[in-house]
């Protein structure tokens, strides 16, 4: 109750441009900019660590991008804490002084949007899938409590939730000046609020966590939906994709083949166990083990992916 009340105040305060929060969101001279790679003209990506949240990585575990147009900048995902958001903002300011008009969140997970607060002073549109606000509404209390504990007080300091101020129902085009980004709200796949971003100028497709490379995929939506969506995404004539976790960019659609194979194996083996009348606990202990060497962080996610897949597929 208390926690909720505090968070509620924090949300109100953000809306009002509370001076305390403004101070915390400002880029101080001491902030070290994140390392970024220019993967295509005007498209920059910071590669997050293959890791889980720790005080030392400050929540810097997801890939974060920004795209610069003639008039404005769009940020795509902001990192797992206010500190990482500030470091991303510093990296942007090291490259351009153009206004940051858009902050796009690819989905609800904390490692992709807890850095939003660092951009509050830029007064951008915070853009998300039309289901993002609801997804955050039911999870934010937990996300904040857990991540505060995992990152520790120093790394978590100043982190607040900023829900979307502008939603994508189906598709939305934003104009950065001679550069349009196509945002597309996807059906339930990795989560029920995945949003993709396509920069047609350079043929770059930002997939958020619809694409994992090296880092084992994490299923928090629908395995069936995810596999169906991959078949559609493969048809997009992009030159390269930016994964939510993995290298800064990779050739499309080759980049998604290992993940496609993983999801296929999990669903095939889970379906077989359901057919055999085996239990969800047995499945969690045995399914997918042939994929173990193909992925980082396998032990941390595989059994949970299998549990989620089983609970979904047993309704078929």
């Amino acid at each position, binding site marked *: 109750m208390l926690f909720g009340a505090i968070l509620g105040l924090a949300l109100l305060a953000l809306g009002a441009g509370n001076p305390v929060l403004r101070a915390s969101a400002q880029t101080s001279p001491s902030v070290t900019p994140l390392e970024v790679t220019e993967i295509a003209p005007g498209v920059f990506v910071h590669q997050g660590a293959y890791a*889980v949240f720790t005080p030392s990585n400050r929540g810097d575990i997801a890939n974060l991008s920004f795209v610069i147009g003639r008039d404005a900048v769009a940020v795509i995902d902001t990192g797992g804490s206010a500190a990482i958001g500030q470091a991303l903002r510093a990296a942007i300011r090291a490259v351009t002084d153009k206004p940051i008009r858009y902050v796009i969140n690819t989905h609800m*997970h904390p*490692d992709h949007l807890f850095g939003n607060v660092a951009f509050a002073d830029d007064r951008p549109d915070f853009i998300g899938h039309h289901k993002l*606000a609801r997804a*955050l*509404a039911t999870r934010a209390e937990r996300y904040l409590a857990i991540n505060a504990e*995992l990152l520790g007080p120093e790394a978590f300091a100043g982190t607040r939730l900023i829900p979307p101020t502008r939603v994508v129902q189906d598709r939305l085009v934003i104009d950065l000046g001679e550069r349009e980004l196509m945002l597309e709200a996807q059906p339930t796949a990795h989560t029920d609020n995945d949003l993709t971003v396509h920069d047609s100028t350079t043929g770059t497709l930002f997939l958020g966590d619809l694409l994992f490379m090296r880092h084992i995929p994490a299923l*928090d939506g629908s395995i069936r939906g995810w596999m169906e969506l991959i078949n559609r995404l493969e048809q997009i004539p992009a030159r390269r994709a930016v994964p939510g976790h993995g290298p800064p960019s990779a050739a499309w659609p080759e980049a998604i083949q290992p993940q496609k194979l993983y999801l296929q194996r999990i669903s095939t083996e889970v379906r077989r166990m359901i057919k055999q009348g085996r239990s969800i606990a047995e499945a969690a202990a045995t399914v997918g083990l042939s994929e173990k060497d193909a992925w980082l962080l396998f032990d941390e996610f595989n059994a949970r992916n299998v549990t989620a897949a089983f609970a979904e597929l047993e309704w078929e």
Partner: protein
Amino acid sequence: MPELIARRSVLGLVGAALTGLPAMPAFASEDPWPGLHQDVFQNRPIVEDGLITLDAPMRAEDAALVPLTVKVARDQAAPPKSLTLLIDKNPAPVVATFYFGEGSGEIELSTRVRIDAYSNVRAVVETADGALHMTTKYVKASGGCSAPALKDAELAEAELGKMQFRQFAADMPSSSSREAQLMIRHPNHSGLQMDQLTGYYIPAKFITDLEVKRGDTLVFRMEGGISLSADPNIRFTFRPAGSGDVITAQAKDTDGRVLRGSWPVKSGSEM
């Protein structure tokens, strides 16, 4: 122990980073069991005598969906009358009580629960002679009651009330018990999930009663609460009576909604 502690912290880190699985430490607090023993069992004597086996994961992969299986040893003089599942540290510690009828088979029952904190999980069986038997497992999981289990909120609402029934072939042709599984689409909202934007808690909405019969004969009746996972899933045994058998299920939820289903019993050769 150091190994266990290390694993727990790793799991917690991962969960929180990507899906919000909990990593809250078990808060040092009083042992809730004496109070539960008083409130739920009126301090009646309870023996931990090995009559019951409880399978639970040592650490839960998903705190909102923790599989539990209870088996009661066969051939005891006094057969089981009821089974109560408890999770000491949950906001609602009594998960459910199952009352077994004439139609029940050898007692083997599986379900899935929410676990809100590192907690003892208990299975307490009352036998026909009135004695209470218990077994206890410690499970490392937390946040299950407030963590939304519904990965697709719209699907959950659209399919609310849908039931699915599955029958399994008998282990041995001579067995007098058959295994079956009943699944009910229901969010089983715990009432502990806060809508962060409004600051209000989502009202509790869960299945309170479930009755499964074979023809007119009771297999089991369940009184349930918010600690059962969303989409309640119960794997149980029944004693088939012969051809023409029908299994029926009737569930009620807190909104007064009544859900019903019925399915003909398949013979072993139809499996």
